[in-house]
């Protein structure tokens, strides 16, 4: 926005908010911005949580229940204390997807305010479960930054992170590696405008019935062991369906990862005077809405109208985290209580658009015994109602062996945190 007075209705709506102090250059990929970001490579970051904050974040039954319910996974391991006490966990356990809560930062809040951020892929490694009463803290660092040409956004900045999670006994519980795509919104929009875009999902009555049937046929293995010896390469995993997503559900579900298990406010809870302080610090950050009001950029991706108008997308896109949860739901349905998900790699080749339905699938592609752990390798993928593969990846699950059915499946010796790479 220019510093001259503009009449109402003449505002340049959209991303970026140039104050009268005249800051410019936000929302663009520049050498200066890329180099500034590169200088953060290897710098260890934490959430700077004080001891009282960690104590208040001890996992509660309510936190576990909210995470399970917002994902739509009503596994009694998460909801029924009596049941869980009879399981190998001995108490209520956090759903594995809550490991995403160890993410210290991501690209949406790291450098180059005003560039859009999309989640490209992630690898999660679990070494032991998080149980009722534990608390989790984490460290993370930026591992790489590079600029690449992009078919969808002209050029992109790829940045990647490594995060390590610890429990209150300072044991490493898991890792999360993430990779992000940053792009200039205006360029993305121009390119998107020139492409054939799919529309919003449409459902006939029989489509909805089919989805309901798939819900009704969900199979949860539960407390029945699935022995490694009984698994064959090529075995399909029973599917799990999610959706059609909608505005209300997504509001809950996208917060359904680690953060909500901890129960603290979101990172974007800025309003009133606090919001104005934030815009003053980061004028390129807000989305100036249709009525001239600066808002946190997160609001874009929950609105079909805004994603169409400002990003040239068919509708409101997802952040990706829910697809991790849904895939984990499928894997734990198959593995049952006597299994341990140790690794998941997921790529997000395209978006889940508001209103889409997502089916999670899996197929056994390998088996191995590694350091006396009986591991099954699984190809995982998600498809939407158009048959598009919206997620692709692989998972590893440790199963019980008939030779030693009582052998504990965890903890897995954790790779200790390595010193982060030296800044370039």
């Amino acid at each position, binding site marked *: 926005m220019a510093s001259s007075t503009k009449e109402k209705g003449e505002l340049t709506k959209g991303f970026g908010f140039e104050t009268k102090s005249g800051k410019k250059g936000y929302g663009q990929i520049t050498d200066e911005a890329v180099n500034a970001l590169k200088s953060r490579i290897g710098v260890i970051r934490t959430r700077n949580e004080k001891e009282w904050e960690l104590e208040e974040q001890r996992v509660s039954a309510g936190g576990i229940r909210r995470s399970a319910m917002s994902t*739509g996974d009503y596994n009694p391991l998460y909801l029924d204390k009596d049941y869980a006490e009879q399981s190998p966990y001995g108490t209520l356990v956090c759903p594995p997807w809550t490991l995403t809560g160890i993410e210290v930062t991501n690209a949406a809040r790291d450098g180059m305010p005003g560039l859009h951020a999309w989640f490209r892929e992630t690898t999660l490694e679990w070494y032991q479960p998080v149980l009722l009463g534990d608390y989790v803290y984490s460290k993370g660092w930026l591992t790489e930054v590079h600029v690449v040409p992009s078919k969808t956004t002209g050029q992109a900045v790829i940045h990647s992170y490594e995060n390590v999670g610890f429990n209150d006994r300072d044991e490493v519980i898991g890792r999360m590696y993430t990779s992000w795509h940053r792009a200039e919104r205006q360029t993305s929009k121009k390119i998107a405008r020139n492409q054939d875009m799919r529309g919003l999902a449409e459902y006939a009555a029989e489509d909805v019935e089919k989805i309901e049937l798939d819900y009704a046929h969900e199979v949860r293995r539960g407390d029945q062991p699935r022995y490694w010896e009984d698994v064959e390469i090529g075995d399909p995993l029973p599917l799990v369906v999610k959706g059609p997503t909608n505005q209300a559900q997504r509001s809950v579900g996208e917060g359904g990862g680690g953060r909500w298990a901890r129960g603290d406010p979101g990172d974007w809870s800025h309003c*009133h005077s606090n919001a104005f302080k934030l815009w003053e610090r980061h004028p390129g950050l807000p989305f100036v809405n249709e009525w001239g009001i600066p808002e946190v950029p997160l*609001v874009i991706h929950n609105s079909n109208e805004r994603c169409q108008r400002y990003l040239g997308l068919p509708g409101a896109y997802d952040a990706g985290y829910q697809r991790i949860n849904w895939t984990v739901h499928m894997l734990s349905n198959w593995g049952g209580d006597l299994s341990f998900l140790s690794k998941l790699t997921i790529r997000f080749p395209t978006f889940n658009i508001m209103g889409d339905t997502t089916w999670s699938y899996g197929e056994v592609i390998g088996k191995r015994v590694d350091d006396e752990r009986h591991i099954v390798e699984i190809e995982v993928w998600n498809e939407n109602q158009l048959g598009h593969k919206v997620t692709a990846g692989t998972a590893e699950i440790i199963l019980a062996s008939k030779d030693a059915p009582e052998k504990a499946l965890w903890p897995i010796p954790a790779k200790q945190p390595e010193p982060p790479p030296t800044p370039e």
Partner: protein
Amino acid sequence: MNTTATITTEITDEASAKLASLVGSEPQDTLTEYRPPTPIKRSQIRHWAVMSGDMRPLFLDLDYAEESPWKTIIAPQSVILHEERFDPEIDGLPGCKSVLSAAEIDWQQPIRMGDTLVSKTTVVDVQETATAAEGRTVTVVTDTVVNNPDGESIGNVLLTWDCYERGSAAHRGLYGERSAPHEYSEDDIDAIGAEYKEEQPRGADSLTGDAVSIGDELPCVLKGPTTRERYLTPGLIRWFWGHAQGVELQKKAPELFFQNENDAPEPIAGIDSSHHRAQRWGGLPGVLEVNGERVHWLVHLLMNWMGDAGFITHLSLTFPRSNMVGDITRSYGSVTAKNLDEGRAIVDLDVWQENQLGERVTEGTAQVAVPVT
């Protein structure tokens, strides 16, 4: 694709009679499962402070708060509103649009970090008005008693909810003459930013009764322009749980759902999620703000004036007009009486709130207790 213009809902005779039958009793409690009584955490108080935009150290800084008259962190007094164990749009008349039209709140004690609140809500009155032109409106009054686990009273909340048939003329009437959300120029936004900087909250240097005179005006407190993002909080969205459970809920309570732009069922409150959707699916100028938020803002006004040692004993408010999301609200007050009582000054005030159009959206009175020297 579904192109139905306006979603309407109906308050049926059966639903209305069922609600009326609850008078004198506790309604089915759908909230406790999601908000069981647990000790109030410091981080929870921080969350409330952030969401109401009142960042005083009394709410945030333990070392500071321990030096205050309360000897610990306290919560904004307005959070007592969250203790109501009744949601008119779910437990009362499923599918209706409910608007808070009046609030009468008494406090006996502050709400401290570590307190557990034990709350009980009773439906005390149900009245109905219906005209062919306006549609049916049901007013339900609830009384929530808030105690600590020892049975000592923390406070009491009497709330009046007006429940409208969605899409009715009465529902549309809540917007008055307005046909669209308020639009701001760059200068407007700059001016709002500058006004925020002028806020001067009083803290440890608390107001004393000696310094209060009838006719004193309180420094105004500004809020807004509001946005929808603030509503993405766990407490408000419990019945949107997704996927298989959403399908089950739809079978049990179809009146809570509408067919959305994907021709898929979605909780009807999703219409209220953005101006775009309220316009398309509600046939409305946009989304209304939640009137109850104004109580938080009035508490901010009073705390800014009183400082840490002040305590609000009573608020009696009516909300004659609704605001739309995107409005700004200024809170005002003036002193009408002062009396000494047991070493404290009891001060009565008129309080009111206006939006950016100069419309008086809240009217009422407050009573506060401040120390005397």
